[in-house]
């Protein structure tokens, strides 16, 4: 009996050892990747923000200087410029529109689909279609419709020269872009909301209906509290989006188009980072170098991160609960 006991202990010990070995070996590459491409990367991005790279005179290599807050000063100059204010304004309008129009419509749509009303299967597929066809293709097709097709049709009514909606006035450009972003913006929201809403307890809905609630009350008092944690995630991610969302502008205008009349931070960051002529070395204004861009990113992160964290906490604290 005792021998069996020690045998068993030995076996368990062996299992524990092999579990430990597996755990370490499988985690190791992931941890190393994380240490390099998250921890070190963010660290080096911070360091970069304090540096200045100068090309050596002989053309080989460069000298790195520590310039304290010089890059931050440049970044602040930019942040307080009229241009950055306009970029922020555009993003805030998009965020507000997303919050008010897209989110509420997405909630209505998800409710409709989760309750399996008429044609809900078809609607669900179509709402997700822009994601499948890709934002890029939708943007390109949309561009042709508001430019070439619009000009083609408008020219038959007037003899004047007609400009496409993405190239005429600043207001019409912005409005056209805003409408596009609303138009293709439902897919992910509706998919996740519907998924959560479908898991609802039928008897809860039934008992509410016995009390005579209507659809809107049902949505407000039962479904929204249920998906509230997911809703928080979308609203909070959207706040980060104020500085990262490109509004498909790179697809519409690319690296050079339209003199950047309509601009947002996401587009601005991507454009400059992708631009082959922008690099580590100081640039002729209005272009920036990588260190200056990193400083700008760091400042924005320091502004956005606390705001999103506080919003999340507040929403969790004062939100509805499922009772």
């Amino acid at each position: 009996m005792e021998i069996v006991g020690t045998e068993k202990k030995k076996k368990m010990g062996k299992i524990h050892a092999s579990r430990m070995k597996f755990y370490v070996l499988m985690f190791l590459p992931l941890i190393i990747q994380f240490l390099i491409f998250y921890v070190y990367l963010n660290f080096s991005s911070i360091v970069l923000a304090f540096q200045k790279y100068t090309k050596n005179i002989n053309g080989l290599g460069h000298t790195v200087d520590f310039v304290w807050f010089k890059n931050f000063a440049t970044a602040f100059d930019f942040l307080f410029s009229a241009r950055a204010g306009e970029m922020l304004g555009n993003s805030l309008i998009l965020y507000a529109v997303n919050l008010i129009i897209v989110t509420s419509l997405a909630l209505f749509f998800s409710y409709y689909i989760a309750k399996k009303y008429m044609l809900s299967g078809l609607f669900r597929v179509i709402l997700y279609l822009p994601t499948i066809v890709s934002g890029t293709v939708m943007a390109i097709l949309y561009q042709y419709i508001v430019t070439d097709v619009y000009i083609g049709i408008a020219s038959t009514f007037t003899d004047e020269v007609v400009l496409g909606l993405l190239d005429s006035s600043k207001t019409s450009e912005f409005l056209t872009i805003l409408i596009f972003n609303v138009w293709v913006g439902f897919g992910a929201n509706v998919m996740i909301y519907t998924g959560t809403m479908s898991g609802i307890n039928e008897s809860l809905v039934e008992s509410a209906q016995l009390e005579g609630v209507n659809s809107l009350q049902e949505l407000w008092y039962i479904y929204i509290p249920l998906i509230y944690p997911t809703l928080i995630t979308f609203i909070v991610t959207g706040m980060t989006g104020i500085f990262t969302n490109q509004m498909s502008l790179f697809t519409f205008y690319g690296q050079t188009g339209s003199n950047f009349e309509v601009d947002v931070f996401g587009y601005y960051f991507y454009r400059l980072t992708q631009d082959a002529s922008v690099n580590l070395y100081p640039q002729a204004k209005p272009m920036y170098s990588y260190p200056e861009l990193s400083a700008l990113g760091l400042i924005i992160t320091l502004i956005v991160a606390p705001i999103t964290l506080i919003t999340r906490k507040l929403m969790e604290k004062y939100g509805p609960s499922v009772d």
Partner: protein
Amino acid sequence: MSKIKRKNRKINFFTICICVILALYSVSIISVLIWALITSLKASVDFGILGNVLGFPDLKYSADEVRLANYFRIFSKFTIVTGNATYFSDLFGRIVIPGQRVDFFGLIFNTIIYAVVCSFVHSFATMVAGYLCAKFKYKFSGFVYNLLLIVMIIPIIGTGPATLVLLRNLGLYSTYAGMIILNLNCTGMYFFVYYAFMKGLSDTYIEAAEIDGASQLTIFFKIIVPLSSKILFTVVLIAFIGSWNDYQTPLLYYPDKPTLAYGIYYMSNNTSDATYETSQLTQRVAGCMILALPMVLLFTLCQDIILGNLSMGGLKE
């Protein structure tokens, strides 16, 4: 049961309104796609000079081209020249040669590699991390879970330049190795999807297999992977479609491996060059269709899997 369900579904003014809005929305999406399909079959003369922007192809003018000529032109003539990859790396002295010509099939090849690497490597990494955190009750697992939660919540903006510098210094800029390593990250939403799923798996299979003497690798590949195949498939499919359509990441980190999505973007942004082989709008729309149709087909075949409920579980600690 069905009686209850029907009773739960009252048709009233509110639901009719939503139905109408959804119907109008659907019409707008579908009509744009149908317009694109029709336009891709037109002759450029038909669309441009004759101003037939909305109608069906006019056979009188489009006779030669209506038979998929726009598509064949892209297959045979469309090439792009990579131009962004010049860089002299300080640590490894590696020079990426700019100005390579990539034809249509090169683009398809790059796209498949990119989409497969992104979807499989990233899904696998998040799955392994989810499994290790959910089923190995070491203190480190809890630490990793909280860490990944924090990473997901805290937004970090503007690390693009630092990533480029790091990739270049490691000699990984615009390489397949770089692509794989960048995607081996276990941060992000899918970790929580797997974690929630693995938490719900019963331990009995694993314990039984362990007592029978199966190795941990066998348990992972013979038990865990098959048990989570449905969710794995969903994540891989969504990631595959996402990366198939993504042109911005390849453009930034792997510029000398341009993908089809980049090709289509490039095509639509290089319209001023009249000598360009595929500069007509009808050809560019055909390009869009070439990019979109495989994914629409894949989506149609797998829509139940893709739209199946991906749940993050309770994300509260």
